[in-house]
Each structure stands twice: as structure tokens, then as C-alpha cells.
């Protein structure tokens, strides 16, 4: 079993659960991406302000800046409009999914997710993000 064709990307990961964060981090790293992992929305936002990123992967429920808050901040920030945002949450009911999408998420994955599906989704949205960035000269 081989990972999908690597499209190396810089990914910011906001997740509070250390185990899930570690395995996701490893998965993305082995998928060829560079991962910066944070345990809260605030830390992830601080990182995004200073570093270029191709994709943001965030949890919904976190202490110190939860998913909806982070989404809102990212969508409001000047230079981050193109940034694809993927939400991964254990909240699987439709209300929460709709909430995530309404808050500006590009995709919503529920835990437990299929690792290959995650890599495919990440690859797809990294491409989309790059296209968006190309279309709108920053």
C-alpha cells in the first residue's frame, strides 16, 4: 500500500488530543507533507500569521480557541482568504457538520476518519488552494 502521489505541502494542524494529533501528524508526514502541529486555535493562528501554509487542519472542540473561532479568524484575516481549511471532529451529527461548513470550512471529516481518505482530501484541497492563490495575485 503506497500513499497517494506526494504533493508536498505545508500543513498546519490544530488538535488538542495528543494521540490523535501525533498519529495524524505522522500520517501526513509520511504522506510527504510538512506538518506544524498545535494544541489550540490561538497557537495555530499565531503560526499562520508568521508562516506560509498550504492547508489548515483543525479540530472543532479545543481549549484556547476552538474550531469555529479559528475558522472565523482565518476567514477574516487579510492574507489567509485562499487557505483551504479542513475540519476533523468527533461531532458527527448533521448540525455540527453544517455549522462547520457555514463557518467557512472547505471540508468536514468525522472521527474516526479513513487515513487514505484524509490524505486524498488533503492533496485535493492543497491543489485547490494553490489554484485559488494563483487566481488571486496576493
Amino acid at each position, binding site marked *: 500500500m503506497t500513499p497517494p502521489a506526494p504533493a508536498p505541502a505545508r500543513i498546519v494542524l490544530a488538535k488538542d488530543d495528543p*494521540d*490523535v494529533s*501525533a498519529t495524524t501528524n505522522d500520517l501526513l508526514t*509520511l504522506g510527504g507533507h510538512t506538518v506544524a502541529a498545535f494544541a489550540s486555535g490561538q497557537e495555530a493562528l499565531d503560526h499562520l500569521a508568521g508562516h506560509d501554509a498550504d492547508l489548515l487542519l483543525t479540530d472543532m472542540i479545543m481549549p484556547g480557541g476552538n474550531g469555529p473561532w479559528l475558522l472565523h479568524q482565518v476567514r477574516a484575516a487579510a492574507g489567509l482568504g485562499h487557505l483551504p481549511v479542513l475540519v476533523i471532529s468527533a461531532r*458527527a451529527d448533521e448540525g455540527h457538520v453544517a455549522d462547520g461548513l457555514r463557518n467557512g470550512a472547505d471540508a468536514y471529516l468525522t*472521527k*474516526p*476518519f479513513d*487515513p*487514505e481518505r484524509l490524505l486524498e482530501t488533503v492533496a485535493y484541497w492543497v491543489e485547490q488552494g494553490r489554484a485559488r492563490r494563483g487566481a488571486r495575485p496576493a
Partner: protein
Amino acid sequence: MSAPETERWSWGRDLPLTAVLCGLAAYADWFAPGVFFGHSLVLGTMFYLVGVRLVGPYAALAVLAAGTATLTAKWQQPFSALLIALEGLAVAGAWRDVIRPVLNVYGWILLFALATAFIASLFATWSVRDLLAGWQALIQFSLAPSGHGALLEDSSRLRRLPLEFRDVMRRLAEMARRLDSETRKREQLLRELESRVQERTRELEQVMLAARSADRAKGAFLATVTHELRTPLTSIITGTRLLRMGWKDRNDVVERTLSTLEKSSQVLMGVISDVLDYSKLESGVIHLEVTRFRPADILGDVAAILEPAARKANLELRVAPGHPPDLEWSGDVPRLRQVLLNLAGNAVKFTNGPTVEIASQVVFAGDEARLWFHVTDQGPGIPADRREAIFEPFVQLETNQVMSQAGTGLGLSICRRLVQAMGGDLTLASELGRGSRFSCWIPREPPPNLPRPPAAAALQKE
């Protein structure tokens, strides 16, 4: 109906009329000489008065006419008044001789018919008046809203009515009385029914409210359990896939992933056993295995299990049995250990004070001996308004604790229910900034029939 009005004598109407009638009578006397004038006057007046009093003015005129006719007949000059009238109409004198014999023959017959009609009308009028008055009284009586019996006794007008009417009225009054009492009974029944309906409605509302809150609690339970299951499952699925992805040369990744797999499996196991425990306690099917044991041993077990975690958290774990070490007691040892592990584990996990103490003592409450366990920490304490809430399922203090570390939020709820199932209770004393003390006690012998947990009983009732 104004029949009674005609009975009254009216000077303005009756005096002139009487005078005219008397005049007519006098004229008739003059027409039939030989009759005393005053006689006619008295008779005419009497006729009229009697007529007016009895049958009203128009009938009185008829009476008078009949009286006049009687008088003229008596003096062999029938219809003298009619003849006068004909003369007054200037009928030729020749006609007088033609008419008079005819009148003389038929006059008697006519007179007899008139008298009969008068007497009949007198009787008829009298009877109809009585009937009308009776009907009128009957209608008024039946329209009266209440108190028919009293009306019948009190009303002088009703008492003057013919016997038949009074009889009918008495029966009516009796019927009305029965109806009244029936109506009162029915009204009372209606009021009772109404109040019962209101009572039932209130009960129903309460039950519905309880059902709705139970429903919400069930929804929250499912959402939380789902969340608690999904998080470790994510690590397990992703970790397993990582290991299968052929990166086995990366020993650090493999090692880390394996440890994550182990931890996540344990978390999953903990969540599942919590949920199972909670469901059992909720439905009241928990079964206690009662054995003899030494409380001091349990304290030692708990301390030994928690020692590594305490050392890691820089806590001193102190065990203080407040009774002879060989004291024996009865109870479900694994369950008791589970409760103490949970309480002391919370203290180790959530506080950073210098010590956590697990103490035990025997206290006599009346004739009853109780074995107390106290778990005391020097953590931040629990606010007064949250001290009961933390025993509710899924309630955790507002903390920055990571959810998977904090657990399902079922622990304290399970502990309290377990201790209650053993016949004891679990309480909390806490002081903000000073620390908390969870205390639980069990009786010397657990109850033979396990009391149903109140929530389960309430659920069943709904």
C-alpha cells in the same frame, strides 16, 4: 294581560256612563208609564255596577240592554227603546203599526235569546278570566328562577287561584325542587371532574417535562459517548494504518504509534466499561458480590495502583487507616476499590497540591456502624454551586483539561450510585483555594435487596 284592570271602578268613565244608562232607563219608564222612575234608576245603576265589576264595561252595556229589555217586557212594551230609535229615525207613523205586532211576536223570542246569551257570556267570561289568570300565574310561576315552593306558600295571588291550578303548581314546585337538587349535584360533579382534569393535566405536564429532560439527558449521553468513542478510535485506526503503510524502518514512528495504540485502546476500554457501569446502575441491574474484607487492604491496593501517577505528578500519596489494621467489614471489594480509585485518581489527576490523603474510619451513628473513606486533596477546590452538579453524569468542571484525559464525566456519577447501591452515600466538602474532600460510607452489611437508583426508578415510572 290586563284583566284585573277592568275590575276597578273609574269615576271618570263609569259615572257618566251610569248616568246615561239611568237616563235611558228613565226614558224607557216614561215610554212605559206606570213604572216608578226611581225604581228604574236604581235597577239600571245596579245592573251597570254589577256588570262593570264582574265582566267589564262592554259586557255591562249588554247587561244593561238585557235589563232594559226585561223591564220593558215586564210592562208589556218590549223594545220600547228600539221603537224610540225607529221614531227617532223619523219612520213614518204608518210603519209603526206594521212593525209593532211583528216586534211583539218575535220580541219575546229575541228577549229570551238575549237573556240566555247574556247569562252564557257571563259564565264564559267568568271562567275564561279565571283560566287566563291561572295560566298567567302558571307561566310566571314556571319562569321563576328558583324557590318555587316558597313562592307557592307566600304569594297571596297564587293562593287565590282555583284549586286545580294550585295542585298543578304544587306538583311543579316539587318537580322544580327535585330538578334543583339534581342540578346542584350535577354542578358539584362537574366541578369535581374539572378539578380532576386540571390535576391530571398538571401531572401530565410534569411527566412530559421529566420525559423531555430525560430525553435531553439521553441525547447528551449519546453525543458524549459517541465523542469519547470516536477520539481513541481515530488514533487506533490511523495508527494501525500508519504501521501498515510500510514505514517500518522509522523506528521512532513505529514506537510512538504502538504506544498511542496501547493508550487509545485503554482509553476506549475505560469509556466502554464506564458506559456499561453507568447503564447497569441506571437500569438498577447491578449485582454486588459481597465478601468479608479488610478495609486497610483496600487502602493499600489503591495507593499501590496510584503511586506511579502520583510520583509523576510530584504528589505525596498518604494512606491513613483510622482503625485497627485487622478490622473486617462486608462489601463488594472490586466495586469499593473502583470507587476509591476513581476518587483518589481524580485527586491525583486534577490537583497539584503537595499531598493526597486516603483515610478510613469507623463511626457509630446510633446503633449503626459506618465505615467511612475520605479522599482529601489540596487542590483548587470546587465552587459551591458546582458541588452537586459534578455528581451528575457527564458534568465536568470548566477546565482546560483535554477531554480524553478528563474522561467521560461519568466517574463520580458512577461512584455515587455504586455507594448508594451498597447502602451508603458519597458526599463532598470543599473550600475554594484550600482543597476538596470526598467522603463515602458503607454500612456493616450491604442491603439484601438493592435499592433502585432514584433516576432509574423515575425513568421507569415515566
